[in-house]
């Protein structure tokens, strides 16, 4: 017979030892102020009372009826062990604790939670990143250091041209012929090669999205650094569409077409053209899987912006519904987008890293309207995806961009159609090094998303599954939440300021990389003789120098 007071156990009951993050709480320091439990985004912690039995074990001197047992009650902060309220390791408790009494610590043991993230019949979904700290890009070293062999360049002294070209560059003779005849010349943009990758107004909170754009505007207007940012699918506030800042924005169109009615409606009132149009076919973080803005992030504002009803799931399917071939896609999407702005705006597709990237590229090369190609590698981040898509689908960016670039070289067209790389830029903080490594491998520029969230807005996520709950609208920093109670934690001015700091720093580091290479007046795109890697297999695959 089971005692009624027995503690039940179900297959998904977990102990502390099963959780990836353990709360370390020091009762001797705790102020019992309630700030940690108030701030915890997932209510993983609570004030707990512990009844402790004090046993008197002395054999002698006991009164006959003395049970020798007393109890005392202790209290402290304790974490919950159910899946829904597991600690996500964000560390907000530590941030608000006045006494350094609490912090989440990674569990070095075997967190069995992993086997129970598939509750209620659905596989584990999350936001964030791959949880793989390994980065091939980090290992690429700039090996060619000019000293007495070349004119010595000094990053602090010389002037550098750091920008790149987005758009199709015609061969000189064709350019001159067309210009002489007054024919159409494909649009190009001179932009900073580090681009804020597509994150939608919706995936991001209003304060985050507008803070990013404000920083980008500052960089352009005050510091004259031509940084652009991509919107992601989901539209753009009408006042922004009609503002002079539109020229710093790459508008994205994806299979959901969210927000495009408002964009088309605003075209006659636009003061300037957008920087470019990005057609999203794939995303590195979840290749072959579509976008999804979950219903609780579809606030009144987001609904209005996207031109949809409030509080419904907004899926962007993995495939564009009426496209069946690359040729058709190019015809329908690229031509339509080009025509919308009178063929004055570069239009390029974004695909996820894939072994079929070269096939896509070769179709684009033959298309006069294609302005470039962006490959998003598998280390990219996202607001929401199935864990399996994030961890195991796609292609790393380095060899993918490299083979595409070498393919262009073989055709002698590497200067005509720019390749852009994304996915895992600066995952360990080395943003300029990672980006420049890709540029030397053949990219004309790189897109970064997670890095800018971490650096500009204090995103707590990490490659060790810290936080990574962007998908449920509870972002403790207010970056990916649509709840004003959370996103008002983010001051757009501070985000903008950090964006400025990030880009001026990238600018400095680019110079520190380029000066020793002896390059100051053009970006060293494809200058692969200047890099090496301490990995023979990677060196062979990337066709760069093996170093040790």
């Amino acid at each position, binding site marked *: 017979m089971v005692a009624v007071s027995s503690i039940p156990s179900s297959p998904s009951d977990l102990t502390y030892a099963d959780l990836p993050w353990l709360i370390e709480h020091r009762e001797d320091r705790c102020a019992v102020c309630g700030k940690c439990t108030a701030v915890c985004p997932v209510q993983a912690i609570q004030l707990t009372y512990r*009844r402790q039995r004090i046993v008197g074990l002395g054999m002698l001197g006991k009164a006959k009826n003395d049970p020798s047992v007393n109890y005392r*009650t202790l209290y402290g902060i304790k974490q919950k062990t159910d899946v829904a309220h597991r600690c996500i390791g964000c560390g907000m408790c530590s941030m608000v604790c006045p006494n350094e009494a609490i912090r989440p610590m990674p569990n070095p043991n075997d967190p069995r939670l992993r086997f129970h993230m598939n509750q209620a019949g659905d596989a584990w979904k999350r936001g964030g990143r791959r949880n793989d700290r390994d980065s091939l890009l980090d290992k690429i070293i700039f090996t060619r250091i000019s000293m007495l062999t070349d004119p010595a360049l000094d990053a602090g002294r010389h002037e550098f041209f750091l920008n790149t070209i987005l758009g199709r560059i015609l061969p000189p003779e064709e350019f001159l012929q067309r210009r002489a005849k007054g024919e159409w010349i494909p649009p190009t943009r001179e932009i900073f090669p580090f681009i804020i990758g597509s994150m939608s107004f919706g995936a991001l909170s209003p304060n985050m999205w507008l803070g990013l754009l404000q920083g980008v505007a500052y960089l352009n207007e*005050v510091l004259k650094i031509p940084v652009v940012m991509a919107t992601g699918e989901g539209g753009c506030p009408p006042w922004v569409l009609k503002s002079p800042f539109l020229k710093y924005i790459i508008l994205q169109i994806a299979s959901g077409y969210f927000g495009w009615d408002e964009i088309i409606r605003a075209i006659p009132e636009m003061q300037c053209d957008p920087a470019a149009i990005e057609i999203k076919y794939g995303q590195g973080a979840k290749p072959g899987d579509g976008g999804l803005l979950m219903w609780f992030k579809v606030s009144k*504002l987001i609904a209005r912006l996207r031109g949809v009803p409030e509080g419904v799931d907004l899926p962007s399917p993995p495939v564009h519904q009426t496209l069946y071939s690359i040729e058709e896609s190019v015809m329908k999407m690229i031509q339509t987008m080009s025509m919308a702005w009178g063929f004055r705006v570069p239009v390029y597709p974004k695909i996820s890293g894939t072994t079929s990237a070269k096939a896509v590229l070769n179709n684009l090369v033959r298309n006069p309207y294609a302005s470039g190609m962006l490959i998003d590698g598998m280390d990219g981040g996202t607001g929401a995806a199935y864990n399996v898509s994030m961890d195991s689908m796609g292609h790393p960016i380095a060899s993918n961009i490299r083979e595409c670039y070498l393919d262009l070289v073989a055709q002698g067209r590497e200067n005509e159609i720019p390749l852009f790389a994304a996915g895992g830029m600066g995952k360990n903080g080395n943003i300029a090094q990672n980006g420049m490594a890709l540029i030397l491998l053949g990219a004309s520029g790189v897109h970064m998303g997670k890095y800018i969230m971490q650096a500009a807005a204090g995103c707590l996520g990490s490659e060790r599954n810290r936080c990574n709950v962007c998908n449920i609208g509870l972002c403790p920093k207010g970056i990916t939440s649509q709840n004003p109670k959370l996103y008002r934690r983010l001051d757009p001015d501070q985000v*903008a300021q950090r964006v*400025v*700091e990030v880009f*001026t720093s990238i600018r400095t580091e680019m110079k520190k990389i380029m000066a020793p290479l002896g390059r100051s007046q053009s970006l060293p795109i494809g200058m692969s003789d200047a890099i090496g890697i301490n990995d023979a297999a990677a060196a062979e695959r990337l066709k760069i120098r093996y170093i040790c």
Partner: protein
Amino acid sequence: MSETNNTIVIKGLNENGQRISSQEFEKLVQEAAERSQNLILHTYGQHNVGGRLLKGTGYRIVLKGPVGQRLGCMARPGVTVVSEGSASNDVGYLNIGADIIVKGDAGDGVCNAMAQGRVMIGGSIGARGLTMSKWNPEYARPELWVLGSVGDIFAEFNCGGIGVVCGINPKNAENVMGYRPCVGMVGGWIFYRGKTDGSFSKGDVKDTVPNDEQWQWLISRLPEFLEAIGQPQHLATLSNRDEWRMLIALTPQEKTLSNLGSMPMQDFRARVWEAAFGGDPLRDIAPGLDRSPIGLIVTGELRRRVPYWANRANAAPCTFYCPTHIPTVERLRLIREGKIEESYELTLRYTPFPASVCGAICPNLCMEQCSRQGVDASIDIAMLGRAVLDAKLPPAKPNIGNKVAIIGGGPAGMNAAWQLAQEGIEAHIYEKEEKLGGKIEQVIPWERLNIAIWQKELERFLRMPNIVLHLGHAVTQEDFEQFLKEYEYVIVAAGAHEPRRIPFPGSERVITALDFLKSVKSGKPMQIGRRVVIIGAGNVGCDVACEAYRHGAEQVILVDIQKPLAFGKEREAAEKLGAVFRWPVTTKEVTDEGLVLADGEVIPADTVMISIGDVPALPFLPDTVERFRGWIKTDEAGRTSDSRIFAIGDVEKPGLITHALGAGKRTAECIIALLTGKEWQPFKQQVIDKKALTTAHYCPTHGSGSSVTDEADRCLSCGSCRDCHLCETICPTKAISRKILPDGGYEYVSDDSKCIACGFCADTCPCGIWVMKQA
């Protein structure tokens, strides 16, 4: 070499008219310097002249003829080097204190890495002047004076040197400072006069005008410079302060700002960003949206959760699982408050038989889920029931003139009457037998219910006003039609007194449990044999077994087609007497041998009894009242298909005595509501989530208390505030306070302007009252 008036002249050409090497020339100069401080050097492009004069001061070295590179290189203090004409590159390279005067122009790299001393140029200089010059604060600052202009990339990485560019007869009148001066300059002053292209390094220096101190420095030293280069005529021209500007190194703090742009972000937002939108960029699609920054710990409407004092919003398990919903936490609260009589009265308002039912025959469903079991053991509810035995009759309202007929004086009908009577409604009980009590009186063995207790509670029941008894009245169809005319409502509470049988062969040999138990209780027990088999091993079967043992049986076997349903006290009693349970067993027939099973086995028996339940016998009930398989169909109030006829107890569905009591109360309440024009509210509370309780505040006692006050202390008061003040105590912001209500009661309230939504109140509350709601 020649010597006059202590002046030594050295020529750079040998006697053959050939240039001597820099190394040999240096040797001659060193020898001469041993003897004289005044040297005239007819150089012929020899390098590094004027340095390394290692002894003494007061040297004056005048160069006549083409000057080589690095004039005055590593020159020391106390040395003056004068070139009567122009000089080549790197004049004053690594100079540590000499005055070097070049009356003509000088090439590139003037003052490169110079640390002290002065270089004065009577013409203009080439590129990279004053680069890497240093100021060692132990000595005077290095100075470079140029009458004309300077070439490109002037003063790179200058670290404290002073440059003066006078702009007289410049090489390029449009730009006296050359392209991009002052890159990496970290200290020092550059005075200049004349036009520039503005290409100076804005990340390193700022363009300004001399302040008084700086102007004083300049104007006081200009005459000496002009005298040195032999052009004093320019003094008036150069004395116009308004024509002079300066490039001054930024401080490291200023440089950081310069990296980030000159405009503070707040200014940018106001002057550029919002100006471009004409206001907030979301004002059209989200009017009035407040996006202003907030902190992490917030109060009021910014909280994501808010505490709610849900006192008595959820039912305690005891109340919830009791079919009568006796509010045990409430009666224990009254006991804790010393209001014993009020507590008992409260109990009696719910049931007339707390001692007989709660205290004896009830399996106490209320206690199966008692939260106290999480600490030690459930509350002893039976003791609480028995404690009410001697309590006074609760007061009843005066007769309000309504009448209800109740057919059947069993527990269901009696509690219905008890409830109606308290509200002043005349309840007429029509009982077929001569005694009230139904199955309590007729069937349940006195071993399980002390007859004295029953009689005492029955007497109390009979003292209740507004109850009219019609004993020995078997209701007929005609009676029933009459009831519908005389009474506002009719409650059918006739019970189930028709035993169920199974028509297997020999079933006529079988005694029903109901008949047997009734015969026992009536004092004329049926005769039974030594070996008894009972078909149906439920709790009634157990009662039968016990009574059989008491009336001569030596061996009792209970068989069932399924796992026996018997539980609790009844089963324990039967097993204690030796009863055996067998299952699964299918009966084929009953013979004089005993029970023949489907597989042919015979369980020998002298007497076979059947205890598989009873069904209602309702000959008086009109056919218009809908039934299902013999039981009357009712709604949640017990109302039948005829809105004036209710059915309660075993006529509705088979159940325990406690279910019958509960049904009686429920239906009575519905009728009371109907008769008094109120809306009837069924019991709708949810049972409290045990996780909401904080049980660690209680210490285990391992076992029930020995008194009602012990039990009152042990009660966790699930869902009902114990007024312990713990929430008020734990609240870190003093948001929670206890407020006295006008009716003398109290409530705990949380001040929204203080609460930070930490949830401590909910985490602390022993009773699960405080809950955090999403806001």
